[in-house]
């Protein structure tokens, strides 16, 4: 699992969420951290839900684990009962050193991947995810940047070239990397529009904080509108939070 990027795949295992079609193939080259989680109301002791649902949840996770393994991924799995789903996702990301979290939407064959690049921050992790997951598949990667007025074409080209360089350093074919710059559109809409032509999206977390990824941040909105799989690259985790 040395070179395989760790990708967190969170599944609300008891609420009918399952591993969508195409996702195991998508992550065939990754180290999958399969997280089955179940959020229960605060009135209920966690152990109480565990006592009742553990077997059912585990048998589903068994199936999913097999799907990923059959596709070629290495898998590590956890089942977590929690009152706070976001906290659990954050902890898992930190504990298992996950580079990215997958928003699990169904995927077809992945030939074109859209990689949205905001800026130089975190670009290294982004490159490791893209090269690790899509490098061996031979898919075409489009590096995409939505520019604002203050940026010159030259700045952006430097940024994208730097990324291309990293990807080829990590073993990708330069020919399979394309770049594209968009202006005059709101970043979110631009990404969603561009994503229509792609089979998967890789993007960074948006600025605010870790705490907002699943429930309504740009990455999640993209996932909602795009309806395909989105890999959200996590920022470097800061050592331990307070409390």
């Amino acid at each position, binding site marked *: 699992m040395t070179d395989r990027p760790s990708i967190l795949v969170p599944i609300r295992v008891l609420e009918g969420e399952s591993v969508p079609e195409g996702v195991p193939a998508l992550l065939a080259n990754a180290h999958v951290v399969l997280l089955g989680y179940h959020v229960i109301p605060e009135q209920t*002791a966690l152990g109480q839900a565990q006592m009742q649902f553990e077997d059912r949840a585990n048998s589903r996770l068994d199936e999913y684990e097999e799907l990923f393994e059959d596709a070629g991924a290495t898998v590590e799995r956890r089942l977590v009962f929690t009152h706070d789903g976001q906290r659990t996702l954050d902890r898992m990301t930190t504990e298992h050193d996950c580079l990215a979290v997958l928003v699990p939407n169904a995927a077809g064959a992945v030939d074109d991947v859209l990689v949205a690049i905001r800026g130089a921050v975190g670009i290294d992790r982004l490159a490791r995810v893209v090269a690790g997951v899509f490098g061996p598949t031979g898919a075409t990667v489009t590096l995409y940047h939505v520019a604002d007025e203050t940026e010159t074409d030259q700045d952006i080209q430097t940024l994208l070239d730097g990324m291309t360089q990293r990807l080829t350093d990590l073993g990708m074919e330069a020919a399979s990397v394309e770049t594209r710059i968009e202006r005059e559109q709101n970043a979110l809409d631009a990404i969603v529009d561009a994503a229509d032509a792609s089979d998967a999206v890789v993007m960074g977390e948006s600025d605010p904080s870790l705490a907002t990824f699943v429930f309504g941040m740009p990455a999640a909105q993209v996932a909602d509108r795009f309806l395909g799989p989105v890999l959200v690259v996590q920022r470097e985790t800061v050592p331990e939070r307070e409390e």
Partner: protein
Amino acid sequence: MAEQPVDVESGGQNVAGETPAAEPEAVTDDTTVHDDDVELERTIGLTGGLAIGIGTMIGAGIFVFPGLAADSAGLAATLSFAIGGLVALLVALPTSELATAMPRSGGGYYFISRGMGTAYGAIVGLGLWLGLVFASAFYLVGLGHYAHAVFIELGIDLPVSPVIGIGLLFGVVLTALSIGGTENTATIQNVVVGILLVVLTVFLSYGVLDALGVFGRESAPEAFFSRGYFPVLTTAALVFTSYLGFAQVATVAGEIKQPGRNLPLAMVGSVLVVTVFYIVTIFVATSAFGADRLGQFGETAMVEVARDFLGLPGAIAILGAGLLATFSSANASILSASRAVYALSRDALLPRKASEVNLRYGTPHVALLAAGGPILVLVATGQVELLAEVASFLHLVMYGLMCVALIVLRRRDPEWYSPSFRVPGYPVLPGVGALASFGLIAFMQPTSIGLGIVVMLVSYLWYRYYAGDVTLKGDI
């Protein structure tokens, strides 16, 4: 992140052939880890822990007892509350040690069953469940008194006293909300406690200044022990119900983050905070009216005190606060009672069915009904003081036994027992804690003591009948 192994072995089976659920493998700062890579996330922080403790306690001591206590002990009721606080502190420290060694849900029941065996565990566990039922009923009757006071304030004259009816209504509403509601109750609890503390601080600061004569009013000077010395102790036993909340923190110990740090802070901290508030409240209340008049106002005496200081707005503020406080105390106690039922059912001391979670809401409807049902019966009696004392009795038995369990565990020193917080002054402090807890019981009314003993006896017989073969004691 230090992993703490859990090495308690449970075994045996009950009449229905159910065995205790498997113990977890380890406890970390963020989770309780079971085998098969199953984890239970810890989500309650220090603020949440304090809110549970303070929120459960503050309703009774400030909004229900001042009138009753002043009536029976005079100005010396201040001392009664101080004694109650001291006993609570003596127990909170050992409880903290046990909780850091065994940060699992179930609180006192868990510590005692693992430290001293199933028989003690069953008596305490069933006692804890019923003790919380009595406590919830007490808060609900208190709530009824406040609601009644609202009607009086509005000038609505009801032909019959609505106290019990309102208590029953809210008992039903709370149980239904707990079963069907999925709102973020912890956040609401934090906010409620915050509001209460602000309202009380403002009100009490004003009251203290007034009592000290800053506003140029004469307060009623009075002999401190106007009712003699003995009532101070009986009153302490009565008002001890105001200190039951810190153990509720231990009942959710399995969900507290960084239990080694947060559990002791939350338990000891909440006891200290409420003790200060109680003592100041009684001081302010008695210096405003004198114990005699205060006693006549009964359960809602604080409303009159506020009216005296701040006029109608003051009375309305305290009425609102009283409704909020008794409501939150009752709610917290119902939830704790349902946790107690779960802990017993997990260990096969009650049918497994009792901890069933329903699919629709994900809530433990059977356990909640097992709390809500008996509560309604007790509310119907309307006996504030009796309900309070029986609740205190059952808790005090548990508190005393927790101190004993700590001494037992320290002496046997099993390998799995490694608390990160160790009680200072061992063995004197837990010893005194145990004696004080049992001692306080002696000052209760005979009826309360009798009822308490009956509950314990029935609990023991239930254990012999239903789960005589179950072993829960930790390995040595």
